[in-house]
């Protein structure tokens, strides 16, 4: 790794007039002090065997009010339990219906207790105890019918930008991602942090080659070492599995190596100081910029660290993100359960093909129809509009992708969150 530092990009100033012009954020207050920008009821299956019943219950209701999430495995997994607790108690979630077959290993009492302790309505239905598919469906639909009005009646309160946690991810990257959408999202991150918000970037496997640049931006030298170690861990993990986080479309789009992809991905993090390194499900303790380490700890097991983009989105949401910024060059269409996804399209050709799926045309920078600071400001403004209730394109189109698989994590060390 060369000690050369990437060139500093143009910083952009917050335009307070635009800030004032936006409708104020409104949030659903939660008992833990956080606020949600949506108020969805989640139907959660606790094993694949309960997936169909859960899906049929969810389908019975308006798609924007009832979201489907779940864990397919029959074997218990502490990571999956923790993820499901964090997701069912997410600020954008107002209540949870849990669907169990009955014989799976998932610790359903622990999940139900966590949701109950959070002050949210919760019900567990065990299909084997409820008389099978039809009876469970009827019971589930009845519970949601009775619970949804409570959610609809909940009042919102004013919400500050500093109460937002925003995550960023890139998917379907090509060589334009690192030129337009990712640095523009980085500018939006810098603007959010200046307003006191917490921001999270992720995928250490796509930061391979960036470890020394990141370490220079760490709040403390010890955190810098932890950031380097997280990327080393990712490189080792991917080397064992035989593939880096590099899909055929990345190469078709002009990216040659994982470190070239990393350069573009890294631009999502903006220019701010890196305040901490967190694991999936950890809330940022205060404002600032955090790296989410999504690569499991210990020996390589359970397969690829993140089998697709939505696995990473679910982990960002479990860290408390109410909004996800998603940059794409090749053209991803995904959204997510629980949190709105803002799609920032890096490639102007892709935008013309798939405009209906995209919230921001960042590729216009390449065609001289806009500048990086303008697009950064547009993303920052859009975050506020979505926080005030505006639906993103993926929400309008009904995208609510969700996936959760097996992983293992050790707790983060003390150097990861310096005080």
């Amino acid at each position, binding site marked *: *790794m060369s000690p050369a530092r990437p060139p500093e990009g*143009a910083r952009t100033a917050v335009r307070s007039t635009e800030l004032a012009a936006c409708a104020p954020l409104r949030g659903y207050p939660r008992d833990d002090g956080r606020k949600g920008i949506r108020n969805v009821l989640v139907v959660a299956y606790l094993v694949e065997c309960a997936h169909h019943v859960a899906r049929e219950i969810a389908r019975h209701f308006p798609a924007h009010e009832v979201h489907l999430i779940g864990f397919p495995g029959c074997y218990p997994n502490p990571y999956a339990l923790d993820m499901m607790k964090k997701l069912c108690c997410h600020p954008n979630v107002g209540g949870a219906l849990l669907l169990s077959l009955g014989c799976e290993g998932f610790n359903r009492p622990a999940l139900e207790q966590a949701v109950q302790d959070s002050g949210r309505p919760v019900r567990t239905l065990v299909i084997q105890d409820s008389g099978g598919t039809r009876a469970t469906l009827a019971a589930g639909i009845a519970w949601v019918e009775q619970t949804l009005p409570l959610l609809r009646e909940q009042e919102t309160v004013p919400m500050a930008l500093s109460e937002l946690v925003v995550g960023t991810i890139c998917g379907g990257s090509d060589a334009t991602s690192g*030129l337009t959408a990712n640095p523009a999202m980085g500018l939006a991150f810098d603007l959010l942090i200046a307003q006191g918000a917490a921001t999270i970037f992720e995928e250490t496997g796509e930061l391979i080659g960036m470890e020394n640049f990141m370490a220079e931006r760490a709040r403390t030298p010890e955190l810098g070492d932890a950031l380097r170690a997280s990327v080393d861990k990712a490189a080792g993990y991917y080397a064992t599995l035989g593939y880096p986080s590099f899909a055929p479309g990345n*190469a078709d789009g002009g990216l040659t190596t994982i470190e070239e992809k990393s350069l573009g991905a890294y*631009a999502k993090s903006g220019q701010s100081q890196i305040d901490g390194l967190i694991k999936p499900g950890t809330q940022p303790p205060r404002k600032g910029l955090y790296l989410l380490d999504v690569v499991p700890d210990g020996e390589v097991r359970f397969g690829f660290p993140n089998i697709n983009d939505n696995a990473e989105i679910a982990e960002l949401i479990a860290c408390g993100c109410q909004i996800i910024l998603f940059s794409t060059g090749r053209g991803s269409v995904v959204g997510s359960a629980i949190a709105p996804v803002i799609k920032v399209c890096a*490639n102007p050709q892709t935008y013309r093909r798939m405009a209906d799926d995209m919230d921001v045309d960042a590729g216009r920078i390449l065609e001289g129809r806009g500048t990086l600071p303008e697009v950064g400001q547009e993303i920052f403004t859009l975050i506020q509009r979505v926080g005030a209730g505006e639906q993103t394109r993926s929400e309008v189109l009904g995208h609510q992708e969700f996936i959760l698989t097996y992983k293992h994590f050790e707790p983060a060390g003390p150097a990861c969150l310096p005080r």
Partner: protein
Amino acid sequence: MNATASSEPAAVARVLLLAPGDNVAVALATLRAGECVSVAGASVPLRQDVMVGHKFAVREIAPDETIRKYNCPIGSATRRIEAGEYVHTHNVRSNYLTNTTAVQGTA
């Protein structure tokens, strides 16, 4: 780290040299073999077509020389690369995970 694509919004450039010392530049439009493009004041004749977002050598690159983009190393040349030659997985390898191009059926 931010790219400099926005620094000259007036003229829509066809190529982008992300940092002054880079030995590759990025195509902002589909460029054709035989075309001469201007990079940092020099004229570079292209030896192959270069698609949007893809790279070409702005000068001769020696075998094993580091490929630099954004003034950052993005890999090493696997052979001599001529000025104006298309630079991609066929003549560059990763310095980290060398099976980067393990793409089903196309590697």
